[in-house]
C-alpha cells in the first residue's frame, strides 16, 4: 500500500446524512455552471454574457417563468414515473417512445372527434394518452416478466420504432388534407386543446396536473403498501422475496405507471404547446427525465425542483442561441455534465474521506489493525 493511500482513507458511511443528500445536487449544478464557464470561454464566447442568457435572462420575465412550467411539466410527469421504477431497479429508459405513443393515441382521439366540439373530447384524450403510453410500456414489461428480456434494451429500441410509427402517420394517413403537403396532422379543434391558465403565456392545465401527480407520487411512495414494496425490492431483493412480494407484479406496476405518465406528458405536448401531431413531439424529454429523476433524488417532490432546473436548461439554451449565437447542442452537453457531476458527488454521500497521520514506524501488528 502506498503511503499516500495510508494517509487518505476512504470509508463507507454507516448512515447517510440527509443534508448531504440534498446539498450534493446543488454542488453538481454549481460544478456544471463552472465547466460551462470554461466551455464558453474555450468556444470564444463571453462567458458572463452566455451564462447570463442561459441561466438568468429566462427568469427575468413572467413569460420566462411560465415557460419554465410549460417545459417542466413533461419532465416532472415522466421523472416521477421513472423514479418509482428506478427505486425498484426497473430501468425504463424508453419514456421517449411511450411519450410518442401517448401523443399518437390522444391525437387520434382529437382527430376522430374533429369538428364535434364536445366537452368529452379532452378527458377522452387524456385517458387515451395514458393508455397509449402504458400499453407501449407493457411490451417491455411483458417481455421482462415472461421471458426475462432486459427492459433497458427493449424499451429503448421501441423508442426508435415509436418515432418511425408517428412519422408514418403524419406523412401518410393523418396528413392534413389542407396542409400544403407538410408532414403534420390537422390542427386540433378548440375542444381538444388544453385550457391556458395565464393569458399571454402557454401555461396550460397540464402544468397543474404535473404538480398534482408529483404530490400523488409522493403519497404513493411514502404511505402505501405498493410504494413500500417498490422500495424494498430495490434495496433488498432477497428480503422482498422472503416477504412474498411478487417481483413480477412490481415490474408491471413500475412500467405501466411510468409509461402511462410519459404518455400523458406526450398528450399534453400535442394538446398544449403544439396543437397537432407533428413528426417530432419532444426535444428528448423522455431522456432528460432520467436526469431529472436522479437530480431529484428519486423523490417526487425533489423531482419538481429538478424538473424546473432542467426546463431552464432548455429555455436557456434557446435564449442563448438567439442572443449569443450559442449552438443548441450546448443544452445536451450541460445535461450530460450535470448527471456526471451528480453521480460523482454521490461518492461523497456514500463514502467519507479521512486523513490519518502516517504511523511513524509502521510495525506489522499496527498495520494489520489499520487495514481492518
Amino acid at each position: 500500500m502506498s503511503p499516500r493511500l495510508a494517509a487518505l482513507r476512504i470509508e463507507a458511511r454507516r448512515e447517510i446524512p440527509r443534508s448531504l443528500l440534498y446539498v450534493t445536487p446543488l454542488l453538481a449544478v454549481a460544478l456544471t455552471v463552472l465547466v460551462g464557464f470554461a466551455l464558453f470561454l474555450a468556444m470564444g464566447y463571453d462567458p458572463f454574457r452566455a451564462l447570463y442568457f442561459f441561466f438568468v435572462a429566462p427568469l427575468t420575465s413572467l413569460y420566462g417563468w411560465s415557460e419554465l412550467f410549460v417545459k417542466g411539466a413533461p419532465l416532472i410527469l415522466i421523472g416521477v414515473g421513472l423514479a418509482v421504477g428506478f427505486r425498484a431497479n426497473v430501468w425504463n429508459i424508453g419514456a421517449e417512445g411511450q411519450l410518442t405513443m401517448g401523443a399518437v393515441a390522444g391525437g387520434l382521439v382529437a382527430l376522430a372527434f374533429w369538428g364535434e366540439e364536445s366537452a368529452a373530447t379532452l378527458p377522452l384524450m387524456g385517458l387515451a394518452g395514458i393508455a397509449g403510453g402504458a400499453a407501449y410500456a407493457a411490451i417491455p414489461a411483458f417481455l421482462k416478466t415472461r421471458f426475462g428480456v432486459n427492459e433497458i434494451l427493449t424499451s429503448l429500441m421501441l423508442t426508435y420504432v415509436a418515432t418511425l410509427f408517428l412519422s408514418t402517420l403524419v406523412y401518410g394517413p393523418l396528413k392534413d388534407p389542407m396542409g400544403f403537403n407538410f408532414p403534420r396532422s390537422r390542427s386540433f379543434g378548440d375542444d381538444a386543446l388544453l385550457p391556458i391558465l395565464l393569458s399571454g403565456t402557454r401555461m396550460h392545465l397540464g402544468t397543474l396536473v404535473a404538480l398534482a401527480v408529483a404530490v400523488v407520487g409522493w403519497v404513493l411512495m411514502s404511505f402505501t403498501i405498493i410504494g413500500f414494496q417498490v422500495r424494498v425490492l430495490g434495496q433488498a431483493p432477497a428480503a422482498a422475496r422472503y416477504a412474498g412480494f411478487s417481483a413480477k407484479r412490481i415490474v408491471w406496476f413500475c412500467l405501466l405507471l411510468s409509461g402511462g405518465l410519459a404518455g400523458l406528458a406526450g398528450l399534453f405536448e400535442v394538446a398544449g404547446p403544439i396543437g397537432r401531431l407533428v413528426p417530432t413531439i419532444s426535444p428528448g424529454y423522455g431522456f432528460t427525465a432520467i436526469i431529472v429523476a436522479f437530480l431529484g433524488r428519486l423523490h417526487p417532490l425533489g423531482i419538481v425542483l429538478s424538473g424546473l432546473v432542467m426546463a431552464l436548461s432548455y429555455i436557456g439554451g434557446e435564449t442563448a442561441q438567439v442572443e449569443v449565437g450559442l449552438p443548441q447542442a450546448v443544452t445536451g452537453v450541460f445535461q450530460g455534465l450535470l448527471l456526471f457531476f451528480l453521480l460523482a458527488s454521490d461518492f461523497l454521500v456514500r463514502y467519507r474521506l479521512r486523513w490519518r497521520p502516517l504511523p511513524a514506524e509502521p510495525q506489522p501488528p499496527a498495520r494489520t489493525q489499520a487495514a481492518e
Partner: protein
Amino acid sequence: MSLEVIAPVLLTVISAATPLLFAALGELVVEKSGVLNLGVEGMMIVGAVGAFATTASTGSSALGIVVGAGAGMALAFVFGVLTLTLAANQVATGLALTIFGLGLSSLVGAGFVGIPVAPLPKLAIPGLSDLPLVGPLIFGHDLLVYLSIAAVVAVAWFLKASRPGMILRAVGESDVSAHSIGYDVIAVRYRAVLFGGAMAGLGGAFLSLSYTPLWTEGMTAGRGWIALALVVFASWRPWRLLAGAYLFGGVTIAQLYTQGAGGLGIPSQVMSMLPYLATILVLTIIAAGPWKGRLNAPACLGKPFRPST
C-alpha cells in the same frame, strides 16, 4: 439472382456490419470484466465526429481514425472514473455518457455538416482484387474492415488462451475472489473499459469515414444500443458476435434495398423499424429459448466493486 447482383449487396452488408462489430466487440470485453457500459452510443458518436472533424480539417484519414478511437476512449475514461473509482451506478453513468456524447458530438460537428471527405481508401491487392466476385468481396475493403475481423480473432484468443484474458474473466466472474488472490480488479476493469471506448470510437470512425463519409447529427441512430444487444445475442462469445453483427448488417441492408425497390407498398418508415424490431425479437428468442440456462453472462456484470482495504 446472379452473382454479379449479389456481390455488391454482400459488400454493403459487410460495411453495415463493421461499425456494429467494432462497438459490440469492445463492449463484450468490457462486460467480460464485469462492467456494464451503456454509453456505447455516446462513445460511438463522439468517435464518429472526432474522426470526421480531424479528417476534414487535416485531410488525413489515418489521423482521423486515431482521433476517433481516442475520443471514444476519453469518454470511456470518464465512465471509468465515475463507476470504477467512485463506484457510481453503472446504468445511470452509461446513460449520462450517451446523453453527453450526443450533445458534445452535435456541438463539435455543427461546423462540419455538409462537408464531404474522401472515403477511406480501399486496399487493393493487384491481381487478387480483380478476381471476379471474390476479388471485391474479400480483397476490396478498407483497412478498418480487416481490422474489425482481426480484432475478433485477437479478442477470441485473448479471452480464451492468454493469461491477462483469463484474469479479466476471473475479475468478471468473481471480483471478490480475484481481489483476494491479489489481482487488481479496478485496474483490470479500467483497461477493459478503455479498450471498449476505443473500439466504440473506431466503430463511429468507420461510420463517418467509410459507411457514409459525411457528418450528420445523431448519425449512429441507435447502433450503439444494437451493439449492446448483440453482446447478449452472442452470449458473450466473440465468434458468435461476428455472426450476429453480419446478420444485423444483413437486416439493415435488406430493408434499404426493399425501400429502394419501391418498398412493396410498405411505407419506408415501417421498413426502417426492422433493425430495431429484429433486435427485440432476437433478445426475446435468446432469453426464451431452451438454452436460457446457459446464457453465459459474467456473474459480476454491472455490480460495483470497491476493495475493502
